[in-house]
């Protein structure tokens, strides 16, 4: 016997909406999730990602739109009728039940024969490597182990869809990396679809097949990790994806998508993401791409520098008062004057005005 997700083709969200009082927590969320896909819902706190997850789980009713599993509409079903697995941020393990009982709870609710339950629980315990602790209570094991129990409990019922609500946010940095790999391994093994809510773009980039960026209850961009990392569709998405330098600039000349623009006292080259950005534009650069060089167009002096082992990350200020985050291979000291520049294809240009 092996744990494997129930068969289905796709999960469809059609114009999913949720209002709280007069506020739209979710606006027209439409998305199709294929079987076996790993989707990350990424966004800052308050963007509606947890609301979206709770709506999918059935813990919150929708105020508009629908959810379909293949040809079946499921948004009117109660959580216990949907058959999805869920991993909660605080794990929500039943404190009065042993790990074995916790994991077997869903199977017992399905009234499966004892032998089947025992076999599946045993397998799930092995999958999360907790066989030896099986008879302990949740309070007697560590946070990372509790997390693994929560995952085992959610997947042992072989749900078509597993929902995860910031499952790693209560773990320390090292454990977080380990559990990340673990979550992806288990996902691949049982072949379910996973919807994973996080505010950590590293987590989303490393885990997901596709990332959905949410902001103020709206879907800002859907794409593969590479698409989001290399070409965020909007300036706010770029900011969230690690483009830490968001600068107001004036376009000077166009050459197709390439354009030159003035930033403070310097003139730099960039790539337009939107078709006609206009005259007032926003230039977005990652600190990793902005490095000191003699030919760099931007003159600045170092404000602070941080040693990161392989390289240095620092903050510099131009004579006009612009602050820029940059990376350097060689040591830089506060007060030092330098020239910074970035390759044109790494400078993304968006229509300005908003930011």
């Amino acid at each position, binding site marked *: 016997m092996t744990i494997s997700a129930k068969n289905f083709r796709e999960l469809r969200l059609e114009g999913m909406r949720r209002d709280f009082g007069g506020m739209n927590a979710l606006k027209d969320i439409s998305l199709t999730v294929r079987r076996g896909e790993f989707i990350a819902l990424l966004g800052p706190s308050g963007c509606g990602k947890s609301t979206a997850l709770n709506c999918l789980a*059935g813990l919150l009713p929708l105020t508009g739109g629908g959810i379909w599993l293949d040809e079946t509409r499921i948004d009117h079903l109660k959580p216990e009728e949907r058959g999805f697995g869920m991993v909660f941020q*605080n794990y929500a393990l039943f404190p009065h039940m042993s790990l074995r009982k916790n994991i077997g709870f869903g199977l017992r609710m399905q009234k499966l024969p004892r032998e089947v339950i025992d076999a599946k629980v045993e397998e799930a315990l092995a999958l999360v490597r907790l066989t030896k602790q099986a008879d302990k209570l949740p*309070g007697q094991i560590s*946070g990372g182990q509790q997390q693994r129990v929560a995952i085992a*409990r959610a997947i042992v019922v072989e749900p078509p869809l597993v929902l995860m609500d910031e499952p790693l946010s209560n773990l320390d940095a090292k454990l977080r990396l380990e559990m990340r790999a673990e979550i992806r391994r288990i996902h691949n093994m049982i072949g379910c679809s996973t919807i994973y809510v996080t505010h950590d773009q590293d987590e989303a980039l490393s885990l997901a097949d596709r990332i959905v960026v949410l902001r103020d209850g709206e879907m800002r961009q859907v794409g593969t990790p590479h698409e989001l990392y290399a070409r965020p569709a909007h300036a706010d998405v770029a900011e969230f994806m690690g483009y830490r330098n968001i600068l107001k600039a004036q376009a000077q000349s166009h050459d197709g998508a390439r354009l030159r623009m003035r930033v403070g006292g310097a003139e730099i080259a960039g790539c337009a993401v939107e078709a006609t950005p206009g005259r007032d534009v926003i230039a977005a650069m990652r600190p990793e791409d902005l490095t000191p060089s003699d030919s760099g167009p931007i003159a600045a002096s170092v404000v602070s520098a941080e040693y990161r082992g392989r390289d240095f990350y620092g903050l510099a200020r131009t004579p006009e008062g612009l602050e820029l985050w940059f990376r350097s291979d060689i040591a830089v000291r506060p007060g030092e004057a330098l020239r910074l520049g970035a390759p044109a294809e790494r400078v993304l240009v968006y229509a300005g005005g908003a930011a």
Partner: protein
Amino acid sequence: MQGMALTPAAPERARLSQRLARRGFDVTTLLLLPALLFVMALFVYPAIYGLWLSLHPMNGGGALANYINFFSDAYKYDTIFTTLKLAIPVTLVNLLISVPIALRVRHMRYQRMLTTILIIPVTLGTVLTAQGMLNYLGPLGWFNRVLMLLGIIHEPVRLVHDFTGVFLSQIVGGFPFCFMLVLSYVTGIDPSLESAAAMLGAGPFARFRHIILPLLGAGLAITFCLAFVQAFAVFPSAVLLGAPSGPTRVIAIAAFHAAYEEYDYSMGSAVAIIMGAVQIIVVMLVMKASSLLYRGPVAGGKG
């Protein structure tokens, strides 16, 4: 040589305050004193004095004469069962109605208003409640009148000066207390546990049976004990609403009768001590039974 001789003596040099602190006593422990004094003066001393009184019978006949007298007179010892017959059902009914209401109320937005309404009976006091019930539920009260007007009954139902009257007043008086305690235990249970159970396919009944009830068990046992002790000491409503010489002759009445009608303080104290003993036995039985239940944290993991 000198140095070696000094070393073993060093630990004894620790100051008294340090040694006490190591055992968990420090200056803050002194803050216990006022409370301790209070308990000694208002509880321990009267209890011991009562015991001493009860062992010195007014009419002689040995230290245990009062107890022998009590347990050889059916009219006296029956009060224990009369009281138990009243207190245990009252407590159980109060618990049983508190749990569903508390489960509902914890999700309500106007929780505070509702709790205020529910605890008003406590603020009224037993005597006022009893007075009100005498009027409303009496043979000419509106309850009987309305039923008769509607033709549901033809003669007034006997609700006061009977077991029913005391029972009802105990429910009215005891429920708020029970409810507040149960509510605090219920709200202590992490709501994500119920969500987790629902996601695993548990319907409302299964969630109650497998998650809420086991986590509530120890709290319900404590609530039962506290509410039981309160109900067991029933006096005013048993006199005002009941039949104090018949079906509601509770043990407190027997104690009152001995002490203030026969002026036998020694016998009165003996009855009071017996009353305390019965309460302790019931509480111990309940706590013993509840020790079999889960009594750990009621949260679902790291918060």
